[in-house]
């Protein structure tokens, strides 16, 4: 039993089945990402002044990834054209490049961009304590320039101050050892302890807080440039070139903090929607790479199909190409709204 129009187009519609199928699927994908992008607009419009972060992402890296993805969209068309001209070795080359570009995009995203975020620390200051942190926030300067206020202090965790008098000492010691951390009594207040170490990420501190009896008192943070020098006019707008945390240490009392975390999804609606959309987009890139790999490898249903039915293989590549263009297009929206705006 052979389903009609699997390879050749139906004359009145001008489409073979899979081509119609992928367009319909893409229509639903538009609505899926449309739902998420509407959530972005809705949340951003509803955000209070200053609560929608800017300039936290690495623009040059994102721009480079954009180029990689657009390039792969070109090569996948070249791969399809090669098949249409029945040039197999050219097909292998162009398809191979497309796969490598897709993989490169994912590696940059997963091995570089995301992990960097998970180590970064941010704390939203309570409204009644904002004045106390003026040296880090520079709100007077911003007000003068009629810019939105700053409500967050961010950087890399340097030390945290804890009250361990009521803590389960044994469990605390085990925890510190496990995470390669050291603790020493605070010079100013002997009741408090300073915890530090190379692996003091926000995630570790969250677990530290869960050790029975441990009370978090303060964070000491190597400040981001924007908090280290808040009145510098250069910080009024997001930077193009990414600048890491400075050497300058700032101290934030836990009781003055509304919420704190890594630059993880729970940090704010901004990162929530950023990680959800880029995560879902990443899954689409992964799916595209796997499917293209399937059509590239010398297997039944893949590149071996060239000998038996080259037109069918060309159709398959055309369909995955349409999908790949869509994935590319989503990124064209993602890049400006998260990195630039």
């Amino acid at each position, binding site marked *: *039993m052979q389903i009609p129009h699997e390879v050749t187009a139906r004359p009145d519609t001008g489409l073979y*089945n899979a081509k119609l199928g992928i367009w319909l699927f893409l229509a639903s994908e538009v*609505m899926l990402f449309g739902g998420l992008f*509407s959530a972005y607009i809705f949340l951003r419009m509803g955000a209070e002044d200053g609560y929608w972060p800017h300039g936290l992402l690495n623009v040059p890296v994102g721009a480079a990834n954009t180029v990689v993805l657009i390039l792969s969209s070109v090569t996948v068309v070249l791969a399809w054209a090669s098949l249409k001209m029945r040039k197999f070795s050219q097909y292998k080359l162009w398809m191979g490049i497309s796969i490598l570009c897709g993989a490169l995009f994912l590696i940059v995203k997963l091995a570089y961009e995301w992990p960097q975020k998970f180590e970064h620390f941010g704390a939203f200051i309570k409204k009644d304590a904002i004045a106390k942190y003026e040296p880090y926030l520079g709100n007077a300067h911003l007000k003068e320039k009629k810019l939105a206020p700053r409500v967050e202090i961010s950087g890399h965790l340097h030390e945290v101050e804890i009250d361990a008098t009521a803590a389960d000492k044994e469990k605390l010691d085990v925890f510190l050892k496990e995470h390669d951390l050291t603790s020493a009594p605070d010079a100013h207040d002997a009741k408090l302890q300073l915890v530090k170490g190379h692996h003091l990420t926000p995630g570790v501190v969250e677990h530290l807080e869960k050790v029975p009896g441990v009370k978090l008192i303060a964070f000491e943070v190597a400040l981001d440039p924007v908090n280290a020098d808040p009145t510098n006019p250069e910080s009024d707008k997001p930077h193009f070139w990414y600048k890491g945390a400075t050497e300058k240490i700032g101290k934030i009392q836990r009781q003055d903090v509304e919420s704190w975390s890594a630059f993880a999804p729970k940090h704010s609606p901004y990162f*929530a929607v950023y990680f959800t959309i880029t995560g879902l987009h990443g899954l689409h890139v992964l799916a595209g790479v796997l499917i293209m790999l399937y059509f590239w490898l010398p297997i039944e249903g893949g590149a071996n199909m060239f000998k038996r039915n080259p037109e069918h293989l060309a159709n398959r590549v055309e369909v995955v190409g349409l999908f790949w263009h869509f994935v590319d297009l989503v990124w064209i929206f993602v890049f400006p709204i998260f990195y630039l705006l």
Partner: protein
Amino acid sequence: MSTAALTHAHDALAHDDHHYDPGFWRKWVFSTDHKMIGVQYGVTGLAFLMFGFCLMMVMRWQLAHPGEAVPYIGGLLRTLFGSSAFQSDAKGIPGVLTANGYNSFGAMHGTIMVFFGIVPVAFAAFGNFVVPLQIGAIDMTFPRINMASFWCFFISCIFMLVSFVVPGGAAKSGWTSYPPLSGIADLGPLNHVFMNGQTLWVTGMVFNITASLLGSVNFIATIIQLRAPGMTWMRLPFFVWAQFVTAFLLLLAFPPLEAAGVMQLMDRAFDTSFFMPTGLIVNGATTQWSGGGSPILWQHLFWFLAHPEVYVLILPGIGMVAEIIANNTRKPLYGYKAMVGAIFVLGFLSFVVWAHHMYMTGMGAKVSAFFQVTTVMISVPSVILVTALMLSLWGGSIRFTMPMLFATAFLPMFGIGGLTGIPLAFNAVDLYLHDTYYVIGHFHYVVAPGTIFAIFAGVYYWYPKATGRMLNEFLGRMHFWGSLIFINGIFFPMFLQGMAGVHRRWYDGGAAYEQIIKPVIHWNNFMSVSAFLLGLAQIPFIINFCWSIWYGRKASDNPWDSTTVEWDTPTPPPHGNFTKEITVYRGPYEYSVPGADKDFTPQTEAPKADKPHSPTPPAAAPAH
């Protein structure tokens, strides 16, 4: 086409069929045959309809007898659903539905009936089984995707069923799952981080949505690509049109809910704040969320699906009723073209009415006015459809067969459902009626004696094609009259209660507000008794359905003397559906054509050469 070519094609098909033996697993379980997938969807969906109805019967017991143990099966219920849903009464008799259990059952009744009962049966089961046959296709365009669709659906069913037995019980935030309630529900030291009611609900829904996306792509592609030669657009049976528009609604309306489901999953599993407002306080304590989210965002995304979903529920039903009415009045549908136009307008408008579910959120007068206008507009195509079906009865020599009984009952029942919806379209009226039993009565009239009656009509109509045997007429009539009477006994008093102000989520049936609703509270007992009797009335159907598979009267290939192509196959149809090449020569409803030798002319019957005004034979490739 020459005779030789026809014979050759016939041989090829028969040859194919002869060698088709995929083995037990590929034939009955992991089948790619659209008919088997349709049956799988149908049986699973009917089982879920029964299950969802049983949940409701337990709730109705609680509403009529608040705080009393469910008789006879109380102990069993407690064993099945655990002590969070059922407790013992003062005398120690087990089986009192707790408030927690009531909320769970209510939320799951809605979810199961809509997403696991009616859509799988009305859209997926009938669509899968009937649509390819009606357009003369050998299968769906993508048989393997079709199989994937069913198994995605099956996984979602497992998620929903498992959620009843995890600690804390199934989801309990209503079928709408409004945050922040749904964001904080089932989270806590006693609940597993993943195996808790609400998280399983969201995960199950993501699978369910994926299944319906795969299905709808397949339906649309099949209808566009695999129509038999001569099956032009305006020769499609109305049921195919209904499925076509329904598939588009599912395709485009469901993804935003999938996005919302993913966001709710993020809120629950990764502590994000998509739907968590700033400064949320639960049980007197500030919460872990950063805030900055919006519960209203969920409502927008949810209703962007859930309003088109209403039409997903009703359109396949209208399609089935149209087929059955044309067949049993022995005359063409009145206004076929107007109906096709109306169904497209309906489909389009259903995307721009969603916020009429949200008048209570204080969107402001301008936004409310917009949605009020679109909502009133959408009643126009709905009325065109119902009026056309009513007028189709006029002057027909009606045969009251089993399918026709249900189809005729559908018309006034759906009419009541539709007309009672009009007041709800108006902002000012809705503010009073919102969340009362009036709303419950309104949409149940549309879906229960509406769509479910259409489903029953469809089951009685196409059962012979699927099994080769007729359903028993006597049991069928018992089923019909019992259902018709008792279903009205449940839903009509809801209007009276709702107008008196009875709220839909009162766990004790309003006992705590007795002073306010005294004139209508006695209806609780009447409605609950009706519900139990409606349950009894389904027993003849269940017996009939199972018994007739083996012992029913044998059906011929075309037992209803129908014109459409699905009856032009052997009964039951073999793999590949047709034993001859299908070519379509005429429209779908050529009943009682003057001068024809019988009162129906099948779509595949070639025009007689000697007739002067015969339709032109199709070209080799279909037109359009």
